[in-house]
């Protein structure tokens, strides 16, 4: 009996992987219904394992359709051997690259390719943006560096585009999104993946002879913000007329405020 259960679970896992690659949720429902009835416990586990994937599918389908189609074309040309290796490397659920795009959308970042000869770092511009990454919000401007929770699927020197922008501000304009600004984007570069300073978790109950010590280092990612897009930036490059420019700015603020 145990031998038979092993075979059945292996077949189910294989079919599961194939269905996840093809990605319509209807196929997963069909497989669950065609399972033989006497084996009761494994289908329950599978239903709980499948439903999060169907949820992720619904969230990502509207945003990244174009990128998913492009990645599917590339995958079919590369072949299935690389997909299997990627599945073994990343471990659990992220076998094809479509899943990476989905999980990235949940954390509100889209990874661009690595760059070498691009001049990405500009001078300071007096523009700020409020960006949400995961559940943390940051007020950011050009050249800042942020520590966020460890972002999967990006390595050092990757360019990221942060989609979820809640607020843009400059000396003359402010733009607020309800809740998100759809056209705005903030570009960032991953500087390093680091561990936080060690925190000692110490629990003690007095007079009860109970004491526990544990150390913890949180995994962080350091991002450097390079560009903010979606708002007009004033570029004042005149060297001979600084006073007039300074006089103009407060006037504009008064009219718009």
């Amino acid at each position, binding site marked *: 009996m145990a031998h038979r259960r092993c075979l059945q679970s292996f077949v189910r896992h294989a079919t599961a992987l194939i269905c996840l690659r093809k990605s319509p949720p209807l196929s997963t429902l069909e497989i669950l219904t065609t399972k033989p009835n006497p084996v009761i416990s494994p289908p329950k586990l599978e239903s709980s394992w499948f439903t999060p994937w169907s949820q992720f599918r619904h969230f990502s389908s509207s945003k990244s359709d174009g990128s998913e189609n492009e990645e599917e074309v590339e995958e079919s040309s590369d072949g299935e051997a690389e997909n299997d290796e990627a599945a073994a490397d990343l471990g659990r659920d992220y076998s094809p690259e479509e899943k990476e795009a989905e999980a990235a959308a949940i954390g509100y970042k889209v990874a661009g390719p690595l760059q070498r000869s691009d001049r990405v770092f500009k001078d300071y511009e007096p523009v700020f943006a409020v960006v949400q990454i995961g559940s943390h*919000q940051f*007020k950011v401007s050009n050249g800042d560096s942020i520590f966020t929770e460890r972002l999967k699927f990006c390595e050092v020197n990757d360019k990221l585009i942060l989609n979820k922008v809640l607020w843009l501000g400059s000396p003359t304009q402010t733009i*607020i999104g*309800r*809740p998100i600004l759809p056209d705005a984007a903030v570009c960032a570069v991953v500087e390093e993946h680091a561990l936080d300073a060690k925190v000692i978790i110490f629990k003690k109950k007095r007079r009860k002879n109970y004491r526990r010590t544990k150390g913890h280092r949180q995994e962080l990612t350091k991002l450097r913000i390079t560009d903010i897009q979606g708002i007009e930036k004033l570029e004042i490059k005149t060297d001979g007329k600084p006073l007039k420019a300074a006089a103009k700015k407060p006037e504009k603020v008064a009219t718009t*405020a």
Partner: protein
Amino acid sequence: MTRIKRRRRTKISLFASSFRGAHSRLTRTITQQRIRALVSAHRDRDRKKRDFRRLWITRINAVIRGMGVSYSYSRLINNLYKKQLLLNRKILAQIAISNKNCLYMISNEIIK
């Protein structure tokens, strides 16, 4: 035999090396004060989140009451949720301090 005791106690006294008076000099009090310090740190890491949220709320409240007679933090938050804005209190407090006018413009927009 004393070298084992000494090794253990130097590790502990390194932790308490910046404490005041006898709390950094006498070994028995060093162990006690180290335990109290670690317990306080553990408890206050959770308290820190609560304390900062209180601070932000107080700051936002102070700035918002300068807008009109009967306008307050509670009404601002109600209006934010009605208009589906996702800004959290940390950001609102930072904006309230750095440029008040921005916050006033936003709250005027939201009232309508």
